[in-house]
């Protein structure tokens, strides 16, 4: 059954540029819409919000083994409601990047039968035998594998949740489209990577994004560039640029204690520096980020320029290094590159 192509349309119809990346530009008819000044309730809000069209649990981590070799992992659980009261579809993505290889995995599931879902206490997000689970949101174990590679990692949060935009209400376009968006950027990560060459013990830093909405993109917005950086100073920076007729940017500066400073459209400059040929496309894999308000001017370089997620809706996602006024590591996600 050509359900994969169907999901392609539901989640991320890059082919239909006017529809916006990830189908996020589609109408939210009948779905709940994010409202300003949100109040979150935990642990309930770690779980699914079925009255919103799309939602994700998005974990990335930069890792290092005893020899100093660097790695990156990504694990994402997407939820999409096909109608406000109707069927739910779940999708899992797996990414594991080494300096010279990138492993991809993907899973699909229907909602309502237990094949995929999210429980809040104890926390568990799963699809098939991939799971991110633990006693609560601060202590989690992530396990997922593909025939080629896998990981089994423990995550320990040593800082608070942070809420982007206006207290978790994250605006995505000049006309005010928005999503609910908070993160846990303070995970210490340790565990094992299962690589074709054998298991590797690693440690590093993790970042988990929670976001849900019903219509976060403008019709003409065709993709985004998203950065999450852990600076050596203990500060963290999250920035995204939505590409469209006019670019729309946003940045969160997160101090070591978890204090978040939001920076509206135009405050940060996000500029591609060098383009690599990836999967037959031209994708920028070196960037310059400048946030003058925080005296940040860094060059962000991909660990492995070929970090291509060859999934239903392909995108680039991989670990990066920052140099310049600040040094550090992080993750870069780029969608909508044709």
């Amino acid at each position: 059954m050509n359900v994969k192509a169907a999901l392609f349309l539901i989640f991320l119809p890059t082919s239909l540029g006017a529809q916006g990346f990830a189908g996020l530009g589609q109408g939210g008819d009948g779905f709940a819409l994010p409202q300003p000044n949100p109040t979150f309730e935990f642990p309930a809000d770690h779980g699914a919000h079925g009255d919103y069209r799309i939602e994700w649990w998005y974990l990335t981590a930069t890792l290092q083994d005893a020899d100093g070799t660097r790695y990156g992992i990504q694990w994402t659980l997407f939820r999409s409601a096909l109608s406000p009261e109707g069927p739910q579809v779940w999708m899992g993505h797996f990414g594991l990047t080494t300096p010279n290889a990138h492993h991809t995995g993907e899973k699909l599931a229907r909602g309502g039968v237990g094949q995929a879902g999210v429980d809040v206490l104890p926390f568990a997000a799963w699809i098939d035998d991939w799971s991110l689970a633990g006693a609560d949101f601060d202590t989690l174990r992530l396990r997922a594998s593909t025939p080629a590679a896998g990981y089994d990692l423990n995550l320990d949060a040593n800082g608070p949740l942070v809420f982007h935009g206006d207290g978790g209400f994250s605006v995505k376009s000049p006309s005010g489209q928005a999503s609910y968006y908070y993160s846990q950027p303070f995970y210490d990560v340790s565990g094992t990577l299962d690589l074709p060459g054998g298991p590797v013990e690693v440690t590093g830093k993790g970042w988990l994004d929670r976001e849900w909405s019903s219509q976060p993109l403008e019709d003409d917005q065709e993709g985004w560039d998203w950065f999450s950086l852990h600076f050596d100073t203990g500060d963290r920076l999250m920035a995204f640029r939505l590409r469209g007729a006019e670019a729309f940017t946003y940045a969160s500066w997160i101090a070591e204690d978890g204090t978040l400073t939001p920076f509206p459209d135009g405050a940060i400059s996000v500029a591609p520096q060098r383009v690599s040929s990836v999967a037959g496309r031209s994708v920028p894999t070196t960037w310059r980020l400048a946030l003058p308000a925080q005296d940040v001017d860094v060059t962000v370089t991909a660990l492995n320029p070929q970090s291509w997620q060859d999934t239903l809706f392909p995108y680039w996602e991989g670990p990066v290094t920052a140099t310049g006024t600040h040094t550090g590591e992080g993750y870069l996600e780029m969608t909508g590159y044709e």
Partner: protein
Amino acid sequence: MRWAAFQALLSHWRRHPLQLLTLLIGLAMATGLWTGVQAINAQARLSYDQAAQTLGQDRLLRLEGGLTLADFATARRAGFTVSPVLEGRLPGSTLRLFGVDPFTLPPRGPATPDLTEPDLLRAFLAGEVVFASSETLARLPDSLPPGRILDGLAPGLVMADILAVQTYLRTEDITRLLISDPDLDAADALADLFPQAVLSQPQSDSDLDRLTDSFHLNLTAFGLLAFAVGLFIVHATIGLAFEQRRPLVRTLRALGLPSGALVTLLGAELALLTLVAGGAGVLLGYLVAAALLPGVAATLSGLYGAAVGGSLTLSPAWWLSGLAMAGVGMVTAGGHSLWHLSRLPILAPAMPRAWARAQGRSIRMQGLAGCALIAAAAALIWLGSGLLIGFMALGGLLVGAAFLLPPILVSILDFGTKRAQGALSQWLWSDTRQQVPGLSLALMALLLALSANIGVSTMVGSFRETFTGWLDQRLAAELYVTASSPAQAEQLIAWAEPRVSAVLPGVMEDVRLNGTNGQALAIADDPTYRQNWPLLDQVPNVWEAFAAGQGVLINEQLARRDSLWAGGQVAFGADGTRRVLGVYSDYGNPLPQAMMELSAFFQAFPDAKISRFALRLPPDDAADLAQEMVTTFDLSPQSVVPQAEIKAFSMRVFEQTFAVTAALNVLTLGVAAFALWASLTTLGTMRLPQVAPVWALGQTRRTLALADLGRALLLGSLTACLAVPVGIALAWMLLAVVNVEAFGWRLPLLPDPGGWVLLVVWAIIATALAAAFPAWRLWRMPPAALVKVFAHER
């Protein structure tokens, strides 16, 4: 020279257009009936294969039995690549629902719907759209949502989301998990998770293939019979044509045409005729198949739940292969004549009688061969088993009887000749005897057709009578109710209890019986059953033991298949065995079945829910109560069915099952009559030299014509009388051997003497009709033609 010779040979057909027509019709009929029957079989198999290949099930390991979607999720979360399937018949229709999970479908399965259209996936998951082949789509009932075309899906199959199918089938179970991972160890590990389920290997032949094998073998046997009968016609005509062209052949050879060239030319002629007749036969086969297929499809659906497309979709190449069959027929029927002609000395006298006389010599051999064949058939039944053996024995009986026919006829006629008084009478007897070799093939065809008719109609008659009686007993309750849910069933039962004399709940679950998939059926202990269910075999006090839950009753199919009778032990489900208390008839059910008392059943299947039940009440009140029930609970009228309606439906399925058989029967008899007519016409021409002297001695043409007619009638009636015992033997073999192997039940032979007499009368009428034209021709023959016989050089 060759072209001229070829034209000369062909000119025979121009002068004998009737002969040409006979030949072509004979071969076309033989080819047509065979091809038609094979087309039906091929079409049905195509449908089964399509059904088996849905989602590539035919090459995947599967886990079946007592599974739910929660088990599916458990398996997925344990890392197994499985996909759930729920299959079942849509209540009140012949459609099969096939529920799938679009997200976990096995890779590379054929016929997968395209859900890429905006909103289609949502609609599919929400149960608002289904998929089916274009043909099936045309008969989607209103109870199903709108369908979309998905060619390549098996006919009668409706693909929908598995949750939607669960709703339609009112179940929370799934039929199976398909395992995409070919690793057997992994599959075993998966099976360990679900002890109630059974792991099965991928099956190249589907369940339907095996279930319906016997049915298709039946059809094939009939097709072969029709083919053989048709070949008799061809053989007779070609023999005549070759005989009549002997003078021509001699002339051509005398003019210098080499023997090899002559044979080549005659071979080319046969090839040409084969092409024409074969082409017509294939066309005829198409028509036969197209006409019979809907009936066959209805039968297969009613009897086995097998969906077969009602229209033919076989490839042109397949149909062309029917021509090959025509070639086989032509070689079989004409090869002998051709070979014979090629070995003829150049100036051999054109002596038609030699042909017939040579055949006469072999009559004794034929008789011996016939005895041997019948003995072999008896030995096969005595020693062998299996459906194929059954059919081989049938073939032995029929062919043996056919071989025995000429010797028996000759003996009778010899006896008549000895007893005959007066010259004319003696001439009549001995001349009739003289005709036997020339007519023997046609008479054998008649014997075959008549025996088959008597045999099959006796079988059908016995079956009908037994089946009707059985239905009367089995459908003893007055109303049969199907609730839309177990909860509704409870309400309905509570409502009905004070209004009727008994409520008889019924519930059925799939279960493994002695190692194969079968059914477990629960019934309440009620006098209705004690009084109305005669058992084929039973332990003492069977109903008391049954009520006490001390064992199960099993159906005849299971009993015969595994030689399991009262007092034995049947392996039941995954948890051990049950004592067999008795055996009951269960006609029309292809599956093994075990019947249990309600409480024993619920011990074995704690989760089973009653959704069907029957009501006992005075028959006169049934209609009113049914109406009241429908209005009170706003039920669909199909939910409450009176006994008579179920009986009528069952009988309809039954009649349909044998409608095809009956059609083939009539066709076969028609072919046989045609063969007789062809032979008599042939003989009429050939026998002129024998008749002319009698005419010259003073007998009128009218007397001679009547004598011919009388002779034909005598031979026809003798053959018809001989066909009766052969037909009865055939019926016995069908009932006692073939049916038991094919369906698993044995039926008593109920003789139908009236029907047999009627058939004999029909055969005599057919013979009279076949003989009428040649006799009329003799009567109206110009005296000059008769005189010419003496002028000829013969």
